[in-house]
């Protein structure tokens, strides 16, 4: 495992360089926007990566809360299976299919639900107890970094194309900002609260915060907004060469996010181990003071 990290790091740097080259020199220039549209190759993959990380944070938080009792863990598993089956079958029922917005395909909805269910069980298999909490804080922090990039590159792109930096009242922009604020408050809560209930409180906040992710994603389908339609499966049309570069860029950012999460996960595990060792050391010092017949705490004289 120690060797795998530097190898993966080198491969990721090469992959990112390749994606950069593709984005700037290989992808065709947009007929309307010119070269500035190439911001899409950083803006959209960052948004998708942030959504994925927040979603993993949601699953880890749900599992952390559900695993508090065996009965709730079992119930949660069956609920996820039920949601997975309903989500997989329902989009193919004609009445439901008619309700889907233009450009949203039943197969993509079914696949999404299949991925959600699979991810829940994969995370449950490889992460237990405190590891789920470590995974949650890791994905939230890295997700906030990617979401910050979305919020910075979005206005930089909007200025030359829309003529404004920010469209006040636009649901896509506002919900993305709210999403970022929710996860920043999640991190602040974890950083500054040292109550025994912090992990549970953070997990509950993460579950509510995750409700904003579908709102951000589907807002452009359901509301009139300045933001363009989604580039995949949303009725928008994109040159296949542009789409190809976009997917390469996303894969490169995904590998980068994976590496960063790996480092952050190890850091968090190490931090908790050091904290435990420090607590143990101070406990041993206290007990040594007691056994030597000394009183460790000052007592008021009567």
């Amino acid at each position, binding site marked *: 495992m120690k060797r795998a990290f530097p190898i993966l790091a080198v491969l990721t740097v090469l992959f990112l360089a390749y994606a950069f080259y593709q984005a700037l020199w290989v992808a065709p220039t947009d007929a309307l926007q010119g070269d500035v549209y*190439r*911001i899409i190759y*950083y*803006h959209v993959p*960052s948004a998708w990566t942030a959504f994925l990380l927040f979603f993993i944070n949601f699953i880890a938080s749900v599992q952390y809360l559900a695993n508090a009792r065996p009965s709730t863990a079992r119930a949660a598993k069956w609920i996820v299976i039920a949601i997975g089956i309903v989500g997989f079958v329902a989009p193919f029922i004609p009445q439901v299919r008619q309700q889907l917005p233009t450009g949203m395909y039943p197969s993509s909805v079914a696949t999404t639900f299949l991925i959600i269910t699979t991810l829940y069980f994969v995370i449950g298999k490889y992460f237990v107890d405190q590891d789920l909490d470590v995974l949650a804080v890791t994905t939230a922090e890295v997700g906030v970094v990617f979401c910050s990039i979305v919020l910075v590159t979005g206005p*930089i792109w909007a200025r030359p194309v829309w003529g404004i930096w920010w469209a006040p009242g636009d649901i896509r922009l506002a919900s993305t900002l709210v999403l970022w604020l929710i996860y920043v408050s999640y991190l602040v809560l974890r950083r500054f609260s040292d109550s025994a209930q912090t992990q549970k409180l953070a997990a509950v906040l993460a579950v509510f915060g995750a409700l904003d992710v579908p709102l951000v994603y589907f807002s452009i389908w359901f509301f009139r907004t300045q933001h363009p339609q989604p580039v995949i499966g949303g009725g928008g049309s994109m040159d296949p060469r542009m789409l190809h570069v976009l997917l390469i860029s996303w894969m490169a950012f995904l590998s980068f996010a994976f590496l*960063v999460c790996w480092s*952050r996960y190890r*850091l968090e595990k190490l931090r908790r181990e*050091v904290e435990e060792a420090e607590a143990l050391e101070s406990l041993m010092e206290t007990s040594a003071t007691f056994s030597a017949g000394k009183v460790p705490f000052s007592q008021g004289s009567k």
Partner: protein
Amino acid sequence: MNSIKFLYAAYIATWLIHGLYLGSLVRRYGRLRQQMKDLGKGK
């Protein structure tokens, strides 16, 4: 449209944010390593 500077700004901003975050990770690793060293000395 002289919009190329916006493209560069977006790309630079992206890597600046990633760089700052990676820097904070390295700093936190350094602090932890120091704490571990101090723990080792205490024994």
